[in-house]
């Protein structure tokens, strides 16, 4: 099945290896274009279809020509950032996640035994 991917995590996708990739250099969540910008979304999908038909080899990456919002130049710094003042909160968050994961695992086991 011929495929083309549209996404925003360049390193993860290229590490994995996919046939064709349109890279939108945006915050994770909006790979197909800015929210509510129909022209940009249509252009992004059009680009993906072009890559689908013009790529000649696997691991083809084409960068979308669109940039994220000019009024938010600091967006690249945010995702999963760990500042010194975050460490105590993150460790507590991790403890809660591990409690929840253990509960989910127990529920899955119980469901499997039901």
């Amino acid at each position, binding site marked *: 099945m011929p495929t083309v991917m549209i*996404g925003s995590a360049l*390193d993860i*996708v290229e590490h994995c290896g996919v046939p064709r990739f349109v890279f939108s250099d945006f915050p994770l*969540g909006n790979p197909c274009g800015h929210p509510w910008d*129909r022209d940009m979304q249509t252009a992004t999908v059009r680009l*993906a279809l072009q890559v689908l038909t013009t790529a000649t080899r696997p691991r083809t990456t084409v960068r979308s020509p669109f940039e994220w919002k000019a009024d938010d130049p600091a967006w*690249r710094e945010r995702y999963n950032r760990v500042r010194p003042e975050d460490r105590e909160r993150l460790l507590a*968050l991790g403890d809660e996640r591990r409690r929840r994961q253990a509960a989910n695992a127990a529920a899955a086991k119980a469901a499997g035994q039901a």
Partner: protein
Amino acid sequence: MPDQSSGPPVPYMERTRNYYRALGYTKDYVWAHHTDVPFVRPAKPLAAMTVGLVCTAGPGDRSHRDAGNRRHVWSGLVASPPASFDTDVAWDRESTHVDDRETFLPIDAVQRLVADGTLGGLAPHFHTAPTDYSHRKTLEEDAPEILRRLRADAVDAAILTAL
């Protein structure tokens, strides 16, 4: 190599590794890596092609999750997609929102390209690829099931979008 005039691409693997270590996890996640990547050329020109959509956001009612909260492949109709989506996956909540479905599941965008003659058609179903971080489940269960469903709709090619 992407143009770096507006800053280098975010190093998500390094960020995620450091973040989960800060959460107290001691075992780093191992991302999928394939030496051999399949490459199939489309058999038809775009204007004759039917495309299927695959994304990573499931339905808002979480019916794609089982009793153990594990996500599974789910399919919806492009003619009547869910009013809301399960967006409890990894996206940048500080910088944007996912209120506009078209940013991660571009049904309307594809339909505009069908209407203007660029593309032959859009398959009646779209599919959700679950993100359970299990390489085995993805390769042995989810991907083959999605492929089966795409073929059931006579899809010629698929667009995969990662929320």
